[in-house]
């Protein structure tokens, strides 16, 4: 180059992690953001609601079947004269805890089984996948009812029962992702530079397999809440804690006389699960690199 010419400098790019890019995508998804806001409100209500609204959901505080808005009870009272606002707030805690805990159990079992099967292949995979199929073909509601009926209707046991019947899809997704990713060259590169199996499995492959697993477990929270509602509707619930399903179950005989006693907790379940689904869908779009280009 003979004369001095100004060539545009290469622009300095800031480091953006895959996580921050996913969040950027998520933020642009209005439905998912709405879901997230609703979900956060529900969580806040579940945390600060009971201390603020200091009414025992089991206490008979007023006459039965007092309709919403009458006599100072915003959502009315149920067939025993218990305050539905208190039931709703208390139930939110239980529903969310069970939802999260059951999803955690599901993911823990599913990811472990799927990761081992997808990494070691051979007989390990054969055995684990046959077990997975066994659990997948069990009638889930029936099986969880049996567990709860046998071992007692406590919250941990209900959580466990839901987790035990729900993990197969997570295991299958994890295995499929492992099978795909283990063939990629960066895994071979790690192996070529002396990474141990444990490291390959959990710090090379698993982080890259996470997106579909995260989406699945988000949706899992919603279905665990529904599952718990189903169980407690059938009476398989811890009698010492209040949950949305239990409120519906205990008031179901009076659905024609006082429909609000069933519809209000039903609506709570519906809104919560819908919010979780929207968040899950949003995560799916945000974490899927193919959709990110659009």
């Amino acid at each position: 180059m003979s004369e001095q010419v100004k060539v545009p400098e290469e622009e300095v790019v800031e480091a953006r992690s895959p996580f921050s890019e996913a969040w950027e995508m998520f933020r642009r998804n209005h439905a998912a953001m709405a879901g997230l806001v609703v979900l956060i409100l529900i969580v806040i209500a579940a945390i600060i609601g009971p201390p603020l609204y200091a009414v025992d959901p089991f206490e008979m505080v007023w006459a039965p079947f007092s309709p919403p808005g009458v006599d100072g009870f915003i959502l009315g009272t149920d067939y025993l004269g218990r305050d539905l606002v208190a039931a709703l707030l208390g139930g939110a805690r239980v529903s969310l805890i069970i939802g999260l805990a059951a999803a955690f159990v599901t993911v823990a079992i599913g990811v472990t089984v799927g990761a081992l099967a997808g990494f070691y292949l051979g007989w390990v995979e054969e055995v684990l996948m046959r077990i997975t199929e066994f659990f997948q073909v069990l009638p889930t509601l029936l099986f969880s009812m049996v567990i709860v009926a046998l071992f007692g209707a406590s919250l941990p046991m209900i959580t466990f029962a839901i987790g035990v019947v729900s993990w197969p899809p997570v295991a299958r997704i994890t295995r499929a992702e492992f099978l795909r990713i283990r063939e990629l060259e960066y895994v071979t590169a790690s192996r070529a530079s002396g990474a141990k199996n444990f490291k390959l499995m959990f710090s090379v492959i698993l982080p890259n397999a996470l997106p579909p697993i995260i989406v699945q477990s988000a949706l899992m929270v919603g279905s665990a809440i529904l599952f718990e509602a189903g169980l407690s509707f059938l009476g398989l619930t811890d009698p010492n804690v209040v949950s949305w399903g239990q409120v519906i179950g205990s008031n179901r005989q009076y659905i024609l006389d006082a429909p609000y006693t069933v519809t209000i907790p039903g609506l709570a379940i519906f809104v919560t699960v819908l919010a979780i689904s929207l968040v899950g869908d949003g995560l799916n779009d945000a974490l899927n690199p193919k959709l990110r280009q659009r």
Partner: protein
Amino acid sequence: MAENALLNVENLTVRFAVKRGSSWGRKSYLYAVDDISFQIKRGETLAIVGESGSGKSTTALAVARLVPAHSGKVELDGEDFLALEDEALRQARSKIQFIFQDPYSSLNPRLRAEAIVREPLDSLKSVPEADRQAIVDRLFKAVGLRKEQQRLFPHQFSGGQRQRIGIARALVTQPQLVICDEPVSALDVAVQAQILNLLRELQSEFGLTYLFISHDLGVVQHMCDSIAVMYMGKIVEHADRLSLFNNPLHPYTAALLSAVPSVDKARREATKRILIPGDPPDPINPPKGCRFANRCPVAQAQCRDAEPPLRDLKGGHRVACHLVGDDAVSPL
């Protein structure tokens, strides 16, 4: 045997079990690499060329012990690499490093560039932690990347830059042998030149020894000191660069060379296209004679009956063809 050979591969065989529907569960084997031997001298570059299915990539993976070898010997600097197990193998992996073909799938998308380059050091723990960053810095500079780019993630780089990261990662353990598996074939032509020049500069700077796998004869001609041509798991010809390109002896090598389109008018006019019709035979049941016989324009009865051994002609030119005499004249 040559004293200064860094890598000595003897009778290496790699086979894969294949399931065939009609064989009642009896296993058949595909010999992807079938009894091959070669050496690489320290500081030199050997290319293995061949078309898809020739076994060139499998050879590279087997030398690096990324696929298990069925039999044979891989000696690196006198040490039998195939005999190592567990922890000894893990540590020895630092001596043979790999540069991959696809710059998109060869970098972990969740790690920053610096972590990708540092990963081998972290895995092997052969260097004290305090020194690792300095090594990474030095290599980033050596492969032509800026320091502030260390913080970026793979998707923020172009294909050529990603390949530079892959090269830095391969060099970080100061390996004795670097295996380049089609290092530029996924890159745009203009970027290929940058990477090829970089590989040659690094070779002279660090005294590297390359095993270079490629299907691109132009690239091979530019990069390598000697070339081994593979066809269906066998080495059919092995010679230094000038001998192979100026006097290809095996009909397959000649066909391969004549198929490369050239911008050189003189070469286009001088080269007669050697047609090799059809496809290679079934690799699971290879013919008993020469594996190239069914496509060879000059094949004779003996070619179909007996497999030609890889013979040493004068000047280290090795060829596996019945029709090449000791006078090293092409049968074509």
